């Protein structure tokens, strides 16, 4: 028997030598060197902070004095905090305004491009807003939606619609922000659907057309069912993204007027970086994380993952 080998080692069992080789052999050592930079990045800025966020959420900490352990107090306080519930309501409403319109417009644009034109220029123009930073877009719309001088009210005036206050009013601010994000994302959503449509074999459409199907039927019976995996991806990522709306609010409304746009991530930001309540802000962020995980799992279940109907 070879030294260092387990007595019953067969070809498929682990031996001391093979374990040693896997852990410390030349191949493994090379692998560790290749992984090392990313591993440092991962531990320092992902793994450790994720654990630390939970630990901080059990403390009261303003960064000036040492953190004080207060157990679950932050979580109890959160449940009784009207501003937390307001933030959840604002965020939920924002997602509800945002997602359906964005998905429908994206789907329409994708189908229109697929059936009417393959133009690269149209695709390039439609995706342009997505390539530009939210800050730039926020500033441009701050000017366009200006209640007195803005272009939006000028255009409404052409159709005889009276001036609107837009982000100046608690009733319209959130819808305005949602509108801006629909404008920004519809082209990108369309691009994803378009890529999905391109992967559907042309012969399916040809066969159906020969059978006398019109555009409406082609869409309902071929495109839509086969786009299911893309739709799941678009819904999951855009819901998760919308829940984390921040940049546009930071530039345009800072949570106001009153609390109309105080969405959850903006509220966490205020607590952490304006009031320096690190513990409370961390507790809020942990709750946000749990909500997002539940929504993702729920959506995957409801939409049955990656399978398309035709499979």
């Amino acid at each position, binding site marked *: 028997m070879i030294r260092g080998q387990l007595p019953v080692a067969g070809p498929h069992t682990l031996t001391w030598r093979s*374990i040693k080789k*896997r*852990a410390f052999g030349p*191949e*493994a050592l*090379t*692998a560790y060197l*290749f992984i090392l*930079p*990313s*591993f*440092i*990045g*991962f531990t*320092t*800025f992902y*793994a*450790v*902070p994720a654990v*630390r*966020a939970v630990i*901080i959420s059990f403390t009261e900490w303003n960064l000036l004095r040492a953190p004080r352990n207060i157990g679950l107090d932050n979580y109890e306080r959160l449940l009784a905090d009207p501003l937390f519930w307001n933030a959840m309501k604002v965020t939920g409403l924002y997602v509800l305004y945002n997602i359906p319109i964005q998905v429908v417009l994206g789907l329409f644009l994708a189908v*229109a491009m697929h059936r*009417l034109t393959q133009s*690269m220029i*149209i695709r*390039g*123009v*439609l995706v*342009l807003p*997505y*390539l*530009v930073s939210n*800050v*730039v*877009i926020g*500033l*441009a719309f*701050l*000017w*366009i939606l200006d209640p007195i001088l803005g272009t939006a009210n*000028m255009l409404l005036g052409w159709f005889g619609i009276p001036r609107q206050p837009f982000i100046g009013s608690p009733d319209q601010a959130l819808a305005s922000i949602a509108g801006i994000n629909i*404008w920004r994302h*519809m082209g*990108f959503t369309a*691009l*994803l659907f378009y*890529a999905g449509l391109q992967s559907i074999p042309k012969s399916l459409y040809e066969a159906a057309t020969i059978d006398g199907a019109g*555009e409406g039927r082609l869409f309902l019976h071929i495109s839509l069912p086969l786009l299911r995996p*893309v739709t799941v991806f678009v819904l999951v990522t855009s819901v*998760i993204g919308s*829940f*984390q709306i*921040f*940049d546009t609010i*930071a*530039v345009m409304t800072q949570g106001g007027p009153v609390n109309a746009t105080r969405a959850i991530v903006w509220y966490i930001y205020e607590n*952490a970086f304006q009031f320096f309540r690190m513990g409370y802000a961390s507790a809020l*962020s942990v709750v946000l994380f749990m909500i997002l*995980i539940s929504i993702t799992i729920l959506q995957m279940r409801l939409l049955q993952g990656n399978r398309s109907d035709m499979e």
Partner: protein
Amino acid sequence: MQRTLVRIPIGRIIGWLLLLALVAITVLPFYVMFKTAISGPGTLFQQARSLAPLEPTTLHFERVLGLLSPEATRAAGGTGALIDFPRALRNTVIFTVLVVFGQVFFSSMAAYAFARMRFIGKDLLFYGYLSALMIPNIVLFIPNFILIRDLGWLNTFQGMVAPFVLMTPFAVFFLRQFFLGIPISLEEAARLDGATPFGTFWRIILPISRTPLVTLGILTTITAWNEFFWPFIVARQSDVRVLTVALQSFQSSTPQGAPDWSGLMAATFLSVIPIFILLVVLGRQVIASLQFSGLK
């Protein structure tokens, strides 16, 4: 015969009209930005009734770029709120270059190890990387801010790039998927010729992975160029702040009652130009990259 000829175009015409309407809605805000930026000083009120630029001038671009004296800037509608555009642009370029090259290079090394090498804890570590994809930024930003503060890195480039320069879970995952598809025979041939693992990686793997590396590079460039939240938290001082942070601060320091819209729109329009150029030069590849980001 004639009926079918008439029936089909109507649906197509409506489709085209809607499509072009949405294209127009997409372009309009960029046009308004441009129109305001090139309209002469003191025309803001007339502009509220006109879609055409009034008294066209390059004055606002010049003052935002710091080419005019303080008096001339004030005369052109400046409010004393300043944006040091060239410096902010330089900072954004430095930030973007560091993040793109660091992230793509280090992530590709890790992705190669995950795709090809055997070592203890590989699967566990890979699932760790993957699950980090699910954590919202804000959860990590609070502890990361504290770490950067404790290191004394607030308002520095190292503080700004640290969380992005060594890896992102998406970059590692994306490249690993691609490396798995490369035929292993190429590497075996290189090994027989006596190449070191790093030599194989550098001279064989990276060159044949041009397409996914460019795709990842484009996606990372766009994200880094537009990054706002993290620099906004850790680097607000005027000497290091990037364009997005500088624009936000320009806006918040302009008078609330009578904002300097001409200057703001000139600055925002200038900051979009690099994206226009990227789209014109690499249009096809940018669009392909974006489509890819959805189909991982």
